Structures are given as C-alpha cells and as structure tokens.
C-alpha cells in the first residue's frame, strides 16, 4: 500500500511553511520565495467508495460546523460546497453506453490548488490569497474583503463567501498540517487510500500504476486529470474515463481562467487607468495651450444691451 501518512506529533516544531516560501500574493508582488518540493493530492475515483470520511475529517480538523440539511433525493450531502464544507462527495449514476452497465461515479470535489490560480488572479485585496512554492493556494482570512472576485476567477467554482462574516472559504490543503510535515486530514483518513498525498512527481508515478491497473480491467480511457489549462493542479484525479471528465458531476473538460477574467484583470486594468490618465492629461495640455475661455467686456456689454433693448 502507499506509505501511510504519519501520526501528528504533539512536540512543537518550527513550521516548514512560511512567508519566505510565497510564490504569488494577490494584488501585490512578492520576491520569488525559497523553492520547495511540489506537493499534490491524488484522488483516485476508481478506488473511492464515497464514504465521506474526507468530509467529516475535514469538518473535524478545521473545526467547521456545517448545518444539518435535508435529503434531496441524493447521497450528495450537503447539496453543494459551503463556507463550512470545503470538500464534498458528488455522486453520479452513469450508464456506460458501451457496456450498458451502471457505473456509480463518485468524485471528491474541492479546491484544485491550480498552478495558475484564477482566484488569486481575480483577488483585489493584497495578500488575501497566497500561493506557496510547494503549490498550496491558501486564503488569508484577515486580508479577505469578501468581494467574491475569487469566485468569478475560479474555473472550478470552488470558493464560497460567508454572508455573515464577509469572508471567502475553501480547502487549504491543510496547510497547517503540511507546515509541520504531515498530509491533509482527508488523505490521512481515506479508508481505501483513494486519496494519497505526497510530492507531485511521486503522485504522478503512483497514478501511472493505477492507470495501468484500470486499463488491465478494461477501462481503456483511464487517465490522470492534471489540466494544463490552469498550469496543472496540485489536486489531481485518476479517472476511469479520463476522456470525458464532464461525466464526473461536471468536472471541466479543459478548465482555463475565463477569458473575461483575463481581460478584466489584464488589458482593462491597465487600459482603464491609461484612458483616465490620458483624458486628464489632454485637459491640462489644452489649458496650457489655449488658456482659459474668458467672458470679455464686450460680451457683458452685448448682454446688457440686449437686456436693456427690451426695457
């Protein structure tokens, strides 16, 4: 089996993840941080039994309190990601057109920790979203202004805004655990090791083995989901049907940061200020060249005459 994640230790240790390791920082620039080993979480949908251990482990480790909802005719509970549910098992009953057999596709949804994070790109608040050189994309509550731009920037529709607090929430890849040399709570808990965590390279190798096994069992399109459109992700999936990610509860086929967002946060941002600046400048220039447009004595006289001409 894949080497289990170690038990957390109770002896305090200096965090191995710090501001020195920042790669990107929203609405601000940081010096390229000290490089770290790239980490990744690999989610093997073919090993996943949809038990939701990842969900309860996440709730417990992150001290989250989700509210008890209702049954809406499905096993997906709660019904969507929320500010308290950073991960969610999504269940899809899919009949394979080739075999006519039912396949119960179960996908653990949550932040993908994109190498090129749309949330971070869209965020207007300096330091509200950070990306570490090991690949973790994390929200910084204190700097978040709750504008929801991250929601618009995310190609996977992951962040959720708390109306009460006006803050954005999502999976942190358990940065506090990783900082002391452990793996995410969900990966530690996962009964079948459908979730494993480690160096991204190791994860890719491990995935190769899984894909080989799946192909030997007739899943000819089995493959790894590490979408290049967002520069790859630090949460990857092994899919039995990698040719159609969409069937896994709408996993984007090839996610990219929306061009709208790119334009908004690119061209418009600069062009806009330029335009404003230009117009202002023209004003000054014009004033300097042609000077003020003054009312002359003659004008007043003329007006006076016109007024008196009547009386």
């Amino acid at each position, binding site marked *: 089996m894949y080497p289990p994640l170690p038990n957390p230790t109770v002896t305090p240790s200096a965090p191995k993840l710090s501001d020195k390791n920042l790669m990107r920082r929203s*609405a*601000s620039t940081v010096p390229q941080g000290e490089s770290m080993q790239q980490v990744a979480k690999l989610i093997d949908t073919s090993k996943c039994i949809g038990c939701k251990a990842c969900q309860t482990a996440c709730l417990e480790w992150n001290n989250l309190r989700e509210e008890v909802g209702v049954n809406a005719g499905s096993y997906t509970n709660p019904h969507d990601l929320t500010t308290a549910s950073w991960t969610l098992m999504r269940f899809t009953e899919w009949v394979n057109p080739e075999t006519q057999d039912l396949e119960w596709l179960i996908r653990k949804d949550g932040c993908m920790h994109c190498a090129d994070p749309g949330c971070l790109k869209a965020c*207007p*608040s*300096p330091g509200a979203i950070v990306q570490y050189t090991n690949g973790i994309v994390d929200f910084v509550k204190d*700097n978040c*202004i*709750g*504008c*929801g*731009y991250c*929601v*618009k920037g995310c190609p996977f*529709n992951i962040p959720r*805004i708390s*109306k009460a607090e*006006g803050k954005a929430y999502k999976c942190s890849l358990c940065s506090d655990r990783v900082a002391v040399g452990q793996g995410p709570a969900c990966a530690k808990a996962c009964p079948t090791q459908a979730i494993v965590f480690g160096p991204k390279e190791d994860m890719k190798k491990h995935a190769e083995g899984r894909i080989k096994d799946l192909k030997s069992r007739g899943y000819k399109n089995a493959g790894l989901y590490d979408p290049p459109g967002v520069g790859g992700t630090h949460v990857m999936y092994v899919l039995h049907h990698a040719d159609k990610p969409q069937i896994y509860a709408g996993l984007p086929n090839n996610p990219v940061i*929306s061009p*709208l*967002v790119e*334009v*908004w946060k690119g061209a*418009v*941002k600069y*062009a*806009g*200020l330029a*335009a*404003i600046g230009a*117009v*202002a400048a023209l*004003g000054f220039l*014009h*004033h300097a060249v*042609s*000077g*003020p*447009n*003054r*009312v*002359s*004595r003659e*004008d*007043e*006289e*003329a*007006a*006076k005459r*016109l*007024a*008196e*001409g*009547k*009386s």
Partner: protein
Amino acid sequence: MADSEVAPGDGIHPGDPVKVDRYTAGARINHWITAASLVLLAISGLALFHPSLFFLTALFGGGSWTRVIHPWLGVILFFGFFGLFLRFWKLNLWKREDGTWMAKIRDVIAGHDENLPELGKYNAGQKMVFWSMSALILVLITSGIVIWDQYFGPYFTVTQKRVAVLVHAGAAVAAICVWIVHVYAAIWVRGTISAMTRGQVTGGWAWRHHRKWLRDLVTRH
C-alpha cells in the same frame, strides 16, 4: 413655447453686469449629491479595480467596508442622476445647431465662440456628457446588481457575473473619463462654476456661450 430654451427657474436680472439665473437651489443640491456619490464611487471603485490604488480603501475604513459601501453609493448615484435626468433631459434633446457646433469643433477647442452658432441652454458637448452619463450609469447600475453578491448572488450564474464585472469596469472607466471632461469644461470655460454654486452666471457668459438661451430669456420678459 414648445421649442423655448428656457427651463423653469431660469431668469434674468438687469444690472451691470446682467445676472442670469441658470440653476435653482433644488437642481444644485441634486447635482452636488450626484457629484459627491460619483466621486466616492470612482475612488472606491478604483481602489478595488487596481492593486496600486487599493490603499484608497483606507478612506472607507478598509477593504471590507469599501466592498460594502460602494454598491450603496451606486444606488445613491443612480437615483441622484435620475433626478437630474428628469430636470434636464428636455433641453438636452439634439438640435440642428448642435450639428453645426460639432462641425466647428476646432473653433470650440480654440475658444473662438464668435465663430459658433448661437446655442440654447446646452451645447452639443454638454449634451453628449449628459447622454453618455445617462447611458453609462444605467449600464453600471445593471452590471453592478449582477455582481452585488450580498443580495443578488444566487440570481446570476458565474458566467453572467464575469461578463458583468468586465462591463462594469469598462463602463466605470468611461464614466470617469466623461466626468473629467465635464469638470475640465467647467473649469476651462470661466464663469461656469458659479452656475452650480450660486446658481447664476453673468449675462456676458450667457451671451458668449448660450446666446439663444439668453435671447429666449429676454423675450420672455
């Protein structure tokens, strides 16, 4: 008179110089409320628009407050401007001489008013400011509502919001530019500002820039 250039409250007072009432107190208050909200909107908007201006959020008590206040200012602007619209739309309708004025835009820029046709209460430039602002504010309030997650989050898709946020930014930039033109014109054309402060301009000013309006005033008396 149907095609009169005179608005309610306009008036003329003989003397030296002649004084002309251009804006009533109501109009002026309405204008300044609108103006204030526009300025605040521009500042708070720009603060969230470009990181280099994020520091401006300090004026509103930080990022979160800026995010909360901005849309409400938008609402004020909308209704404020709506008031102005009701007051001014009629005299901002396009007239024949406006075309001539546009044709002679070089003289306009050079300040050779003597070469320009006699104009009513507003010249083509002012009318364009008026109408573009009307349009832009309509666009801004609409797109603004789409991205006002606090209250309207659930009603729109992420894609709709992405379009809205882009449109909102574009329209805002345009509005700010128009606003600059408006302000500059008021400064460049001396004697204008008193119209919105004391509500009066001198006869000479009216003679020089809005002679048709002045004539109508005189003939009305």
